[in-house]
C-alpha cells in the first residue's frame, strides 16, 4: 500500500501545471469560450506535452502510462478548468488499444497519440439518459465494413473531432465502431455547453464505420469507467482550486469591519468544504487505483467514486459561490466558472443519483474498500 507519487509522476504533474498556469490563463479560457468553447491550438499544446498519448502503448507512438499518470494530469487540468477534452483522448487511446485489432490500432493510435486525430466517445442517446445498455443506433453490414444509423447527443466537441467511437446494435448485440467525421452521411450540429466548453449532436445516416469490437457493452462500460476516473481526478483539481480561491476571498473580503474568514459559522463551512475535498480526493485515488481491476469490481468502485465526487462537487461549488456573496454569481469573477464546471461534471458519465442506484444494485454483504 503506497499513496506516494513517483518522481516521474510528480514531474509530469509539474509540467502540466506549468502549462496551465502560463499557457491557459483565465483570459485565454474566456476567449476560447467566446469563440465557441474549443481551441484546437490549445488541444495541440496538450498533445505536444505528450498527454494525448498517455494511454497509447509506446509501440503505437504513445507514452504507455497508466491510470495514476492520467489522474495526475487530469487533476492539473482541472485546476485550470481546461475545456479541451483530453479525457476523450485518454478514453480513445485505452479503448482502441484494448479492444481494436492490429490494423485498427495501427491506423488510429499514432494519430490519437500525436493529437492529429481527436477521437471522442459518441454514446449518449435521448432515450438512454445515463444507461449504457439502452441504444437505438443500428449498424448493418455493408461492402467493406458497416454503415451506421444513429443520433448521438451532447458529444464532446463533436463538430471538431476527427472521429467518433460509436456504440450501435448489430442485430440485438451492442458493438463499438469508429466513424470519421468527414465521412459521407455524418452531420454535426455544434453548440456551447454550460461550462464554457463545446459539444454537438452527431447524426449518422448510412455512415461508413469500422468495427472496433463486437463486445460493445464491455468496451463501452470500460470506456465510461475511464471517463469517470478522469472526471473524478479533474474534479479534485477544480475543487482544490475552488477552495483556494474561496479561502483567499474569505481572508480578504471585509464585512462589518472584519474579514469574513473570521466568522465562526463561515469557518465551519470552510471546514465542511475541506471535508468534502479530502473525501473526494480519497475516492479519486480509489477510482484510478481500481481502473484496472476486473470489470465487476471496477464498475462497483467507479460508481462509488462518482457518488462521492458528485456530492463533493455540488457542495463545494455551491458553497464557494455562497461564501463569495454577490460577486460569486457574476460572470466577471472566476469562481462562478469553477462552479459551472463542477455542475456540468456532476452530470457527466452519470450523475450522483444514477450512480447511487448502481452502488445500491451492486451492494454485497461485505463492507469497505479493503473488504
Amino acid at each position: 500500500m503506497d499513496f506516494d507519487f513517483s518522481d516521474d509522476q510528480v514531474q509530469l504533474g509539474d509540467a502540466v501545471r506549468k502549462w496551465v498556469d502560463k499557457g491557459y490563463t483565465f483570459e485565454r479560457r474566456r476567449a476560447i469560450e467566446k469563440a465557441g468553447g474549443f481551441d484546437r491550438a490549445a488541444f495541440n499544446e496538450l498533445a505536444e506535452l505528450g498527454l494525448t498519448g498517455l494511454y497509447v502503448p509506446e509501440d503505437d507512438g504513445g507514452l504507455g502510462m497508466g491510470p495514476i499518470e492520467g489522474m495526475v494530469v487530469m487533476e492539473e487540468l482541472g485546476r485550470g478548468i481546461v475545456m479541451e477534452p483530453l479525457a476523450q483522448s485518454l478514453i480513445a487511446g485505452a479503448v482502441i488499444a484494448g479492444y481494436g485489432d492490429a490494423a485498427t490500432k495501427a491506423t488510429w493510435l499514432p494519430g490519437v497519440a500525436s493529437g492529429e486525430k481527436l477521437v471522442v466517445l459518441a454514446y449518449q442517446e435521448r432515450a438512454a439518459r445515463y444507461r449504457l445498455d439502452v441504444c437505438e443506433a443500428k449498424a448493418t453490414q455493408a461492402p467493406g465494413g458497416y454503415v451506421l444509423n444513429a443520433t448521438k447527443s451532447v458529444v464532446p466537441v463533436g463538430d471538431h473531432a476527427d472521429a467518433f467511437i460509436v456504440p450501435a446494435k448489430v442485430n440485438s448485440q451492442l458493438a463499438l465502431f469508429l466513424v470519421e467525421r468527414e465521412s459521407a452521411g455524418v452531420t454535426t450540429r455544434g453548440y456551447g455547453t454550460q461550462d464554457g466548453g463545446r459539444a454537438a449532436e452527431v447524426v449518422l445516416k448510412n455512415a461508413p464505420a469500422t468495427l472496433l469490437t463486437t463486445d460493445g457493452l464491455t468496451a463501452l462500460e470500460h470506456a465510461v469507467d475511464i471517463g469517470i476516473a478522469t472526471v473524478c481526478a479533474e474534479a479534485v483539481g477544480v475543487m482544490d482550486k475552488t477552495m483556494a480561491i474561496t479561502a483567499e476571498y474569505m481572508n480578504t473580503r471585509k464585512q462589518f469591519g472584519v474579514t469574513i474568514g473570521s466568522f465562526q459559522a463561515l469557518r465551519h463551512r470552510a471546514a465542511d468544504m475541506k471535508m468534502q475535498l479530502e473525501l473526494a480526493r480519497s475516492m479519486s485515488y480509489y477510482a484510478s487505483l481500481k481502473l484496472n481491476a476486473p470489470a465487476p469490481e471496477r464498475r462497483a468502485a467507479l460508481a462509488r467514486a462518482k457518488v462521492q465526487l458528485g456530492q463533493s462537487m455540488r457542495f463545494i461549488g455551491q458553497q464557494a459561490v455562497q461564501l463569495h456573496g454577490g460577486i460569486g454569481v457574476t460572470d466577471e469573477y472566476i469562481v462562478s466558472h469553477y462552479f459551472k464546471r463542477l455542475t456540468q461534471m456532476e452530470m457527466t458519465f452519470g450523475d450522483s443519483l444514477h450512480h447511487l442506484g448502481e452502488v445500491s444494485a451492486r451492494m454485497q454483504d461485505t463492507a469497505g474498500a479493503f473488504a
Partner: protein
Amino acid sequence: MDLAFTPEEQQFREEVRAWVRANLPTDIAHKVHNALELTRDDMQRWAKILGKKGWLGFGWPKQFGGPGWNAVQKHLFEEECALAGAPRIVPFGPVMVAPVIMAFGNAEQHQRFLPGIASGEVWWSQGYSEPGSGSDLASVKTRAERQGNQYIVNGQKTWTTLGQYGDWIFCLVRTSNEGKPQTGISFLLIDMKSPGVTVRPIIMLDGGHEVNEVFFDNVEVPAENLIGEENKGWTYAKHLLSHERTNIADVNRSKRELERLKRIAKREGVWDDTRFRDEIAKLEVDVIALEMMVMRVLAAEKSGKQSLDVAGLLKIRGSEIQQRYSELMMLAAGPFALPLIREAMEAGWQGDFPGGEVGNAPLSSTYFNLRKTTIYGGSNEVQRGIVSQVVLG
C-alpha cells in the same frame, strides 16, 4: 382554526383569477411557464394592464388609490398571478419606494411620483447596495452635498436590478459623516436621465444581464427630491425593508415551479423512477410546509391576535426551495440540460434543441441564476443570525 378560506376570500380569489386569466397576454404567460426570457416590453405591458385596473399598487391603501386589500387578499392576488404565469411585478416602484413616499414624502411628492408608479409608466430602480457593502447596508459611501436648492451626488451603486430600464432611482446617500454610520444617510429620488448618471451592466454567471452598476458623477438633484428629513434616510430604508415582506417566501412561484418540475420529470422519464420521484416528494413536503408557515403569518396579520417572528425563516426556506426545484429540473434533464443555446431561451425559436425538447434549454441557466436567492435580500447567513436572536436573545 380553519384551513379553508372564507367564502368572501374564496370569491375574491375567483374574481382575481377570472380577471387575470382574461387579461394576462398569453404570449407572456407562455414565457413565464417555460422560463423563457422576458423583455422590458413584456414586463411593462403587464404592469400597465395591472395599472389600468388599479392593481399594480396591489398593496396600497385606498387613500392613495390602491385597492386597500388585507394580507390574505394580497396573498391571493399574488398567488393567482403566479399560478397564471404572470411575470413577477417589478417591485422597486409599487412595492418598495411607493410606501416610503406615502409614509414620509410630502403631499407634493405624493402627487408627483405616485401616479406614474401606479400606472406602470415610470420604471423605478433601487440604489441601496454599494461596492463592498454586501450585507452591511449602512456603510453608504455615495455622497450628496447640498448646494443651494440642489444636491450634488457622487458615488456608485451596484447590484441595481433591471437598472438598465430605469427612469428613476431611489438612493441612500451620505449627507453627513457625523455620528454612527446610520445617522448621516438620506433618502433621495434621482432622475436617471440626469447628466452624470451612467449605468453599466454586470453580467451574471448564467450570461444574463439582470443587474447593473450605477455611477453618479456630479449629478445635480433638486432638493425637493429628498424624502423626509436630511440624515433620516436610514429610518425610511428600514421601514422599506420591514414592509411588504409577506411574499418574501415566494411560495406561490415555488408552487407553480413544482408543477413544472413534475411536467419535466414526466417528459424526461424520471417520474416513475423511485429514486428521482422521492426527491420531488421531499420537495413537495417542503413546499407545503412553507406554504403552511406563510398561511400562519397571513392569518396572524389578519386577526392581529398573535405575532409571528418568522420573516428570517421564510426567507431562508423560500430561497432554499427555489434553488432545489431548479436543481431538480436540471438533474431531471441530465445530459440535455448541458447545451447552452441562448436563442433557445427566447420565445418562438425554431431551431432543433439537442434531444428535441426545447423546454430543457433554460434549466441550467435558471439553476445558476437562482444561486442569488440565498445571497440577496440579506444573505441566509445574516438571516440565521437574526433568527438566532429570536431563539437566544
